[in-house]
């Protein structure tokens, strides 16, 4: 048994130093304020600056594995991920979920034309999966693609698409085959500038606009834009979602429990600092334990993946564990601030300029998106424990 991640050899110091200087030279200064979660800039100028930044990184020869077909040097990849995250501005523009689908199911031509363009910030992508009436029950989606000559004509409505307001391309699931359920779905690449597409930004509980609604009014998509084969869309989406979930977790800003300890030191409770309060300490102790366990669950899943022993319950377990802990951590941070937790971003009274208030509101994105935690519990129960499946009603 070991949990060692091999240390990066000193011989890579030069690689890191060179990368750092590229980042330092091109890292943009943005008007947009960075927040926790998958967030989207609200100004076109900031998006343009980020495209230039991504391009500079790419042109200097730095490309993440997810955007290419051969794997790079593992140490270089680790350094690349570390340094790009440490830069504090997004280095991937758009929702990159399609990269897994293209790598696993795309044609060589599709891979060649799309993957490098994502890496260099030229193509911003959005995901067009969920619909107003097809959320948890995604296989019930109703957006339809009807074959017409060399094209499919798409009619329908999508929702919860991040980055759609700035997107160049969309990763679309639409119903093309004359069967109900998952077998009738096909995955497409859609040029977001095609006539008939209407993107309407959605404002969420955070007050920010990180998601969109997308309307399709007889949008013509060439048949050559199908990813994989007709009717394979569900399989492709599942494969790319699994790849995506393995990357969920973590987050910037260091150990969240240490951050909570700092909040507890800086706020009062009764006659002393909150950190001196027994009930507070017990609560932080439990969160600390659960936070460490989250890490060990990740180590266990990585081990099972390497041994080919992944079970259907693993990804949902990790997703629920992390998203509920993340929510509780932000709720705890607000509770520790007491009445001061009422002051938010931009107010002189706010603590850490309202980052915890925003984190609290945004935390619900994680308990709902990517399969609600209730659906995840169904998956654990049905596919992990072998319990009877939920009865299906009429569609």
């Amino acid at each position, binding site marked *: 048994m070991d*949990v*060692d991640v091999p240390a990066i050899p000193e011989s890579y110091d030069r690689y890191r130093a060179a990368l750092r200087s590229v980042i330092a030279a091109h890292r943009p200064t943005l008007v947009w304020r960075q927040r926790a979660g998958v967030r989207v800039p609200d100004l076109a100028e900031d998006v343009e600056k980020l495209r230039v930044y991504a391009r500079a990184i790419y042109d200097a020869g730095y490309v993440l594995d997810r955007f290419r077909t051969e794997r790079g040097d593992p140490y270089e990849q680790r350094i690349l991920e570390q340094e790009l995250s440490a830069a504090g501005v997004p280095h991937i523009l758009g929702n990159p979920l399609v990269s897994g689908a293209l790598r696993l199911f795309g044609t060589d031509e599709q891979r060649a034309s799309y993957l490098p363009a994502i890496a260099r910030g030229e193509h911003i992508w959005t995901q067009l999966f969920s619909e107003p009436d097809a959320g948890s029950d995604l296989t019930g989606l109703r957006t339809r693609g009807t074959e017409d000559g060399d094209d499919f004509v798409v009619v329908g409505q999508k929702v919860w698409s991040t980055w759609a307001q700035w997107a160049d391309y969309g990763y679309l699931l639409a119903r093309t085959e004359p069967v109900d359920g998952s077998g009738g779905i096909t995955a497409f690449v859609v040029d977001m500038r095609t006539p008939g597409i209407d993107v309407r930004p959605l404002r969420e509980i955070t007050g920010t606009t990180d998601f969109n609604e997308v309307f399709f009014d007889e949008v013509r998509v060439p048949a050559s834009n199908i990813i994989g084969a007709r009717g394979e869309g569900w399989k492709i989406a599942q494969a790319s979602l699994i790849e995506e979930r393995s990357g969920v977790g973590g987050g910037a800003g260091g150990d969240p429990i240490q951050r909570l300890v700092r909040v507890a030191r800086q706020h009062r409770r009764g006659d002393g600092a909150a950190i001196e309060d027994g009930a507070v300490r017990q609560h932080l102790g*439990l969160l600390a*334990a*659960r936070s460490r366990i989250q890490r060990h669950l990740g180590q266990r899943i990585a*081990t099972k993946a390497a041994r080919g022993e992944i079970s259907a*319950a693993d990804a949902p377990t990790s997703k629920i564990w992390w998203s509920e802990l993340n929510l509780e951590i932000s709720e705890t941070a607000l509770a520790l601030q007491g009445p001061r937790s009422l002051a938010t971003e931009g107010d002189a009274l706010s603590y850490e300029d309202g980052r915890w208030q925003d984190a609290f509101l945004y935390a619900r994105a994680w308990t709902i998106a990517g399969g609600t935690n209730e659906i995840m519990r169904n998956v654990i129960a049905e596919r992990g424990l072998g319990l009877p499946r939920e009865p299906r009603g009429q569609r």
Partner: protein
Amino acid sequence: MDFGFNEEQDLLRETSRRFLAERQPVASLRPRIEAPDIFDPEIWRHGAELGWTAMLIPAEFGGGSLTGQPLVDLMVLAEELGRVLNPGPFVGCNVVADALARSGRDLQAKTYLPDLAAGATTAAWCLSGDGAPVVSAVEVRATAESEVEAEGGGTGDGWRLDGVSRYVHEGSSAALFLVVALGEGDRVVNLLVPRTAAGLSSRTVTGLDLTRRFSEVTFDGVRVSAANEVPGGWDVVERCLAVATVLQAGDSVGAAEVLFAATVDYLQRRVQFGRTIASYQAIKHRLADLSMELEGMRVAAEYAALALGDGFDDAPEAVATAGAYVGDAFSHLCGEALQLHGGIGFTWEHDVHLFSRRAKANQVLFGDGSWHRERLVRLVEAATGATGEA
């Protein structure tokens, strides 16, 4: 990265599981759950042949681990013994063996370890009585004495022990005690005391946990030679506590695993309103939650064994995490299992209460969850800078 057991450990698991299924299934405990004794030394001697007591003892004293990671090997066994609610002094024997192997004097190791490794004798760790495992809770006083008879003959300096140590697992059958006592100025002394010592008596406590026996061990002017002190003071206690926490966590994981599987199985067979109750989403979601808790218990316990055994920098946090989470989660799982079983789970004949009773013991021995959570917070505080990002 390989956070899982290897083939040798899997084989060890299989061997012990087969042996225990045959010789000591939970059903075999039934006739003795209300008897004064439940521990079977015969099974223990067989277990010793399977390595139950050997892992932390050096080969020269008859021990030896399976892999280079004896605590991880032991975690396999702790889980297996937990699965059948084994009544034996697995934690006590291994804690004392570890203390002797790491901190004991040569003569102490030579005298006691071979019999412990062979399962010929058992040992018990006498920490303290009520409350948390802290110095102030130790109720055994050690007074310096001269002219104390040494075990090998002759007389010399030594100690006189007075006081009591409670909730000592198999304290009424152990041949050897490692006693935590307070000397002058509350200096902590760890003393090896044979059961035969004059003035030592034990009384089995009528207990909540029907699967194990705990004793009150009384020291009434017990004389112990200075040669019987295991050097190291409170550091030895800390190490014993860490090993005990980890092994007890393993016991909880194994027992929880079995009870959870039995619960899932029962709910898939129990039919009400024309359908199995496992088909109700309210039940499915509770089982999904328990499955997550069980997985959390497992990784917390197993990581703690790895970190403590290999001396990781975060071993104290890892042990505290296991202590902070596992016992409480086990107890919660037992409560849910009982509730989900319904009326049948409330009967004496059903095994669920045996698990629940064991969980209540595991929840409070060697520091309860709140004590370990406080420890964990202190460790996080110490690592947290005054300002800036962590």
